[in-house]
């Protein structure tokens, strides 16, 4: 705006509120990481970016919102009730998003795959699915109408104080839930027969098919897994920000960036990229030029470009870039 910006000098800010910035950054990073895994898994098996994945996340968020609003009404959850509501929100969010992701795969991708359509057709189909879901949500829930879930726990509830910084329940819940789900997803991909199928299709779909892997089934399961994580993230995200029909687009871009930064096709890379972007976005706020928060986006994408220049396959990406 042309006036002296209000922020304390960047380092003073971080010195004063390091742990708060850390908690907020991890909270955002947890959400990005869970969505980024979906992008990276689908890229692994299909070799393309699912541009409707942001909307998959949005659908899960709305499901959790309406579930908790339906159960709680105007009341506020307490104690074990809060825990149950969070688990229910994650479960329903994950379930609905898994269904939506499966639908997207069946309608927008599978017919094209069967016809050996060019990559560009997949891209357009994905963008079409994204617009369709977003517009449908806008029609149903209102355009730009941010809907919050029921009060799952007391608003602004502080769980503990860390070096003087108040760490809110919402941040702790988001981080723990994300870590648990990402570890589970990692184990599924790395240590189960199902995961072996996903990794096999990622490396060579045709050969894995000859070796007895059911390609259609593997791809569907990949969409379910990625969708479920995005839906759970959607619900966790609503606890802080509510849900609006276009949230998937803006958050999706960050999550996609996280996946690329971590090494597209690499599950652990996607999680790492998500956490990095969340933390970097938080800690760069005090350094925003003229107090304009949008500079944090410039810094983030600048880092992305620099990383890709030095390491084109991303932080943990390998040569093929498809190593889920």
């Amino acid at each position, binding site marked *: *705006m*042309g*006036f*002296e*910006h*209000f*922020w*304390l000098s960047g380092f003073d*800010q971080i010195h*004063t*509120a390091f742990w*708060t*910035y850390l908690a*907020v*950054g991890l*909270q*955002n990073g947890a*959400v*990005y990481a869970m969505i980024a895994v979906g992008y990276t898994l689908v890229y692994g098996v299909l070799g393309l970016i699912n541009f409707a994945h942001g909307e998959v996340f949005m659908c899960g968020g709305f499901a959790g919102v309406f579930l908790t609003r339906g159960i709680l009404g105007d009341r506020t959850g307490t104690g074990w009730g809060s825990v149950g509501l969070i688990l229910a929100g994650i479960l329903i969010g994950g379930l609905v998003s898994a269904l939506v992701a499966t639908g997207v795969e069946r309608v927008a991708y599978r017919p094209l795959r069967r016809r050996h359509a060019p990559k560009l057709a997949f891209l357009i189909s994905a963008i079409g699915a994204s617009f369709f879901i977003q517009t449908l949500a*806008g029609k149903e829930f*209102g*355009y*730009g*109408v*941010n*809907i*919050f879930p029921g*009060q799952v726990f007391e*608003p*602004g509830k502080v769980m503990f104080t860390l070096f003087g910084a*108040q760490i*809110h329940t*919402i941040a702790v819940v988001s981080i723990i839930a994300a870590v648990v789900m990402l570890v589970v997803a990692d184990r599924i991909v790395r240590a189960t027969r199902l995961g072996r199928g996903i990794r096999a299709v990622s490396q060579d779909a045709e050969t894995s098919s000859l070796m007895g892997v059911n390609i259609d089934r593997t791809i569907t399961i990949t969409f379910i897994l990625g969708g479920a994580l995005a839906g759970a993230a959607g619900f966790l995200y609503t606890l*802080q*920000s*509510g849900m*609006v029909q*276009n*949230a998937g687009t*803006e*958050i999706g871009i*960050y999550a996609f960036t996280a996946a690329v930064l971590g090494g597209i096709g690499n599950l652990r890379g996607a999680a790492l990229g998500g956490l990095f972007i*969340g933390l970097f*976005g*938080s*800690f760069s*706020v*005090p350094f*925003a030029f*003229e*107090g*304009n*928060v*949008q500079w*944090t*986006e410039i810094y983030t994408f600048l880092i992305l470009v620099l990383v890709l220049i030095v390491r084109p396959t991303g932080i943990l990406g390998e040569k093929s870039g498809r190593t889920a």
Partner: protein
Amino acid sequence: MKLRLNKAVVATSVGALLVAGVPLAGLASTSSAASAKATYTIGVEGPFSGSDANYGDYIYGGVQLAINAANASGMYKFTLKPEKFDDQGSSSLSPAAAQKATGTKNLVAVVGPAFSGASEAAAPYYLKAHVAEVSASATAVALASGSDSNFMRTIADDSVQGKADADYLVKVKDVKNLLVLSDSSFYGDGLAKVVAADATAMGVTVTTGDIPNVNTGGGGTTTEYGPAATGIATADPAAIFYGGYSPDFGLLLSALSSAGYTASAHVIMSGDGSNSPALITSTSPASAANGVYLSEGAAGKVNFLTGKLATEYYKLTKIKASVAEYAAQAYDATDAIIAALAKTSAPKSVSTMLRKEVVANLHKVNFKGITGTIAFAGDGDLRNDTGTSAISEVENGTITFLVNEG
């Protein structure tokens, strides 16, 4: 039986027609007079889809109401109909909406554009086509610069609102240290600058920041509000003024509340872009909006449709008039266009000459509207633009009018 009855009806009708030759001729002439009435379109440019579609609906309802009243009055040599031109409140979409409007057959003038940024982007197209734009809601000061005689508005601009807001913060709330935040939109930035400049002139220590909006194409991201709120809570200014719209202000209030910065312990204020019940539902917990001050620039004291008009508005739109921001100003804007049209010869078809005449006549209208006296200065602002800003406070989830400031 049925056939015979029909034959009887036909015979009777034919007889009646023959006997009633003269009245029939009269009927014919009346009918031809009715069809001789010109039908004009009044366009409404604003957001009818996208994140701010509610504002477009509010305004369109006000236009419909005024048009229905004019058509029903039988006073005019023309019939009017409204038509929507959707720009989603976006400056990138408004040029296309404006071109569609100006290319519409028999369109005489436009109520709108609704948003300031969209108005700025659309202005050259309306100017070129000589189509008058009477906005009910675009308040950015720079819009009425005097170089565009086609632009007018039935709402006080942000210099009035911003000054009144700064006055209220400094003189009534005794604020000495103010953080002025902008959502980086044409509207929000303009209003924030006025508040910052006026407060600075009154000796207040003013610092500024920008948190780009998420919901009006500002390119911001919801996850930016958490870290930004942390920064604000750490700096701990005594008061905040936010220039922007309710969905984004709600997100900011939610994040500030989480960061421990609340309206109960500080002074938090915003302008007309946030002065909507949508702010309460956009804030979580809703109680985080309690104690927030909201303003709205107005030519007079009436900002919403009331009484019989409010009842008719609800029947027409199913929207409660008490939440329909800018509907009253849209009603007055439409009445101004109708008054300007009434002074023309009302030709059957719309020509550039008629559009020019409407622009010229609009600059001469002077009538008592429902929001106050509607008469435009040369730059398009209301002549009594030195009006007031209505200050309200959110009390227990309800926006309650406090005082007219300024």
